[in-house]
């Protein structure tokens, strides 16, 4: 029938327990490996979060978060990333049922929302730097740009990855290898949204309440 079905047929017997069923299908192995990479990526972000939390009050007489952060921008960024995560999920459903127009449609929405997020973030960075709040200004700002910039870098890489995957769908179709890469991409995109949840809470919301 389709590519996923041929992988499933590798499983020998319906009654064999998982531990004795032989090697797992390549889709499961690849996704599990990527899952472990994502968890290690989250551990790296945990170190950046810890550095930010420790250095948050180290403003060295410079501007603090309450004067710099714009809550409306943060809310729009959050909405962009959340809805793009949703459309990414709808895209993976379209991929499972091999609907090509729906895949392109949801990928386009995901891409546009990701670009909007990145543009807002870069504009925020630019206005902060224009006010003299550069990464060199204080330990707080170094930690801020490291944490938020690293997340933004991940989003940028994800956008490039999405373009590459759509080119692969266009030229190679829904073959098993392309489907595995698309699965990894959607895991990556959802994980970025999970990191952003921690980020807007710790940086933006906790930054303005003090």
């Amino acid at each position, binding site marked *: *029938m389709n590519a*996923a*079905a041929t992988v*499933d*047929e590798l*499983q020998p017997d*319906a009654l*064999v*327990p*998982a531990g004795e*069923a032989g090697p*797992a*299908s390549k*889709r*499961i192995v*690849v*996704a*599990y490996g*990527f*899952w*472990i990479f994502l*968890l*290690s990526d*989250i*551990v790296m972000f*945990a*170190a950046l*979060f*810890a*550095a930010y*939390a*420790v250095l948050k009050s180290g403003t060295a007489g410079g501007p603090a978060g309450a004067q710099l952060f714009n*809550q409306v921008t943060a*809310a729009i960024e*959050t909405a962009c990333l*959340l*809805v793009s*995560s*949703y459309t990414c*999920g*709808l895209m993976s*459903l379209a991929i*499972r*049922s091999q609907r090509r127009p729906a895949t392109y449609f949801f990928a386009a929405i995901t891409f546009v929302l990701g670009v909007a997020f990145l543009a807002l973030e870069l504009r925020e960075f630019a206005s902060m730097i224009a006010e003299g709040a550069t990464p060199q200004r204080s330990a707080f700002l170094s930690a801020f740009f490291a944490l938020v910039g690293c997340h933004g870098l991940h989003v940028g890489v994800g956008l490039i990855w999405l373009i590459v995957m759509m080119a692969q769908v266009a030229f190679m179709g829904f073959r098993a290898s392309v489907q595995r890469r698309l*699965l990894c991409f*959607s*895991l990556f995109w*959802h*994980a970025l*949204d*999970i990191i952003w*949840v*921690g980020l*807007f*809470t*710790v940086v933006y*919301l*906790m930054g*303005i*309440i003090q």
Partner: protein
Amino acid sequence: MTTTTRSDRAPGDAAPSPEVQPTAPAGVLIYTIGLLLAVVLTATSFWVANTSLLWGPGVPLGLAVLAIAQMGVHLVFFLHITTGPDSTNNVLALAFGVLIVALVIAGSLWIMANLNANMTMSPGLMDLHMQR
């Protein structure tokens, strides 16, 4: 397609349906429920940060609880990490990741707060110290 193979599940894949087709409407429904829950939690977070109705010192704790709840919503509804036996490997890896994240963040905050508390120096003296 085979019917009831008890294989592991890839993270990000929805539960393998016993029926033939991957049941698209149910998948959309799961993502939509996740989106609605996430929107509600996000809106609550922004409200909690801005309201003056709540007891001030409790607000950061409330925000942390809301953020962790929303991460849970994302894991369950978007990444399809469940407690089912086919997802055990994914959950164990996640549990290890959460352990390391908790150790890194809580340990850093704890030890740095301890160092700060033990280094009682007046701000003026501290500035002098840092200028050299």
